[in-house]
């Protein structure tokens, strides 16, 4: 998909996830909105996947280490036809497969996550298996910035470069907020890029809500042979919904009727402008 269409797609996914969270009366709104552009770039452009054959062994792998942001993922997998889109209505309801965290009973999900700090080590394992088997698939792992406080992240950070896993791309959704407030107040992370570089990663810092930069960065990885890539995706928590942007409270706040209407209006206006942009091109 070309970039303008990707931007419109991301806005549509945001609308879908807001409706889904509103309907279920539960969900992690802020972190899902912040990483929607990252997931849209990966799923609609960058990753080799086949919705009709989710277990195709040549596929690129994605691990949502920040599993609480599953809403954007459910909406994308439903939109791509990994499962019937209708099923999004069952999100978080009794007995559903579409629970509040990734669940590998659902086609398209590799691994169950939800406890933070697990994903990268799993990614190291998958990337290592690809190397040992001489396969060319890539592994993408999305983490939160608050998640960086878990020691297990750094154990995996040490292993990636040790095994020269240049087929591994770790992404940090650097939205600078966690539940209790700013990451720098809760548990300071800076200088975060220097830390990853010191562990032996090739660090690329981008605007993680800018579709052009996302596509360019992911398509280029690995840019240095023998080194895993860390994409510092500087994002806005609550991105795309004016009143939720950069507000910690929206981490797991659920929009009411009016807020939903306002958010949907903002996002459909954005889609219209992308469509205009597309026509002009």
């Amino acid at each position, binding site marked *: 998909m070309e970039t303008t269409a990707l931007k419109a797609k991301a806005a549509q996914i945001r609308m879908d996830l807001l409706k889904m969270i509103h309907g279920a009366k539960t969900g992690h709104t802020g972190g899902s909105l912040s990483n929607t552009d990252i997931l849209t770039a990966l799923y609609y452009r960058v990753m080799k996947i086949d919705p009709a054959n989710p277990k195709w062994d040549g596929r690129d792998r994605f691990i949502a280490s920040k599993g609480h942001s599953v809403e954007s993922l459910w909406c994308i997998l439903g939109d791509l036809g990994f499962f019937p889109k209708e099923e999004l209505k069952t999100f978080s309801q*009794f007995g559903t497969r579409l629970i*509040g*965290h990734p669940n590998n009973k659902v086609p398209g999900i590799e691994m169950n996550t939800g*406890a933070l700090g697990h994903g990268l080590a799993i990614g190291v394992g998958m990337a290592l298996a690809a190397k040992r088997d001489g396969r060319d698939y890539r592994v993408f792992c999305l983490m939160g910035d608050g998640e960086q406080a*878990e020691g297990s992240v750094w154990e995996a950070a040490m292993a990636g470069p040790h095994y020269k896993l240049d087929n591994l791309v770790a992404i940090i959704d650097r939205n600078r907020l*966690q*539940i209790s407030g700013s*990451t720098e107040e*809760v*548990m300071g992370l800076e200088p975060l890029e220097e830390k990853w570089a010191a562990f032996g990663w090739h660090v690329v810092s981008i605007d993680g809500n800018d579709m052009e930069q996302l596509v360019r960065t992911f398509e280029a990885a690995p840019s240095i042979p023998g080194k895993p890539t860390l994409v510092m995706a500087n994002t806005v928590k609550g991105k795309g919904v004016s009143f939720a942007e950069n507000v910690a409270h929206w981490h797991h706040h659920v929009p009411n009727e009016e807020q939903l209407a306002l958010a949907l209006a903002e996002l459909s206006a954005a889609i219209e402008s992308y469509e205009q942009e597309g026509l002009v091109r």
Partner: protein
Amino acid sequence: MANTIPNRQVICDTLLELAKEDRDIMVLASDSRGSAAMAPFAKAYPEQFVEVGIAEQNIVGISAGLAHSGKKPFVTSPACFLSMRSIEQIKVDVAYSATNVKLVGISGGVSYGALGMSHHSVQDLAVSRAIPGLAVILPADRHETKRMTEALVKHEGGAYIRIGRNPVEDVYENDDYEFVIGKAVTLREGGDLTIIAAGETVRVALDAHDALKEAGVSCRVINMHTIKPLDEEAVIRAAAETGHIITVEEHSIHGGLGAAVAEVVVQHKPVPMRILGIPDEPAIAGKSAEVFDHYGISAGNIKKIALDLLGR
């Protein structure tokens, strides 16, 4: 009238009160002060509050260090992560090193219903029970939670406390009773059968008592708020005097309250027993009440099990 105060808020209120006099009381949180209802404590006593970020192993290690230096740390963190992720720190830094750390697992059991198995905490009693010297406590309602918190501040030694997320209906009429760690409370007398419960299932057991009374069954109800050290004497007496025991818990049927009671029963006074809890299968998602209902953790089902056990 339905109670609207969750137990986590009672812990905060009680600690706020006690911290006025006791500057050694400390509260720690792992990006969880909101879920633990500890934001008021953080605000009132910033010098007695520590935020560690999303790092459950770190929070237990730091607490052990604080306790070693004379502080009385209360660690507040989701039960699922606190009990399992940090279990080695709990074993070595808290229990083995005999530090005075109180571990408060919040949103325990299936409180985080729709978030899936990563967030359900139904193995915590099994693991914490196997650690020497660690007290394991599940308060039944807000009154017991208040008394328990006061007792914990006085208690020297490690403890794991598990509470749920939502307010629970009262079990006690008021907080005018003595809470003793390790001493069970007989809430209803009865001669045909004993139901032993802990935490939020105590309320369910009381409702089952009423349902059984209508069916002509005289049922004893024991609130086993301390899973460890278990009140063995109360169990043995129940077995001897009522001849049948049912345990009810918001935990896997493996290794929890039922297992603890069964260990005593088979060794001291074997009687027919049933263990009701979460079966050994992948977690089902839903609200707490839906999950309880799905697994038959309800007064109606306990009544059925009881009648079956009594051969009626």
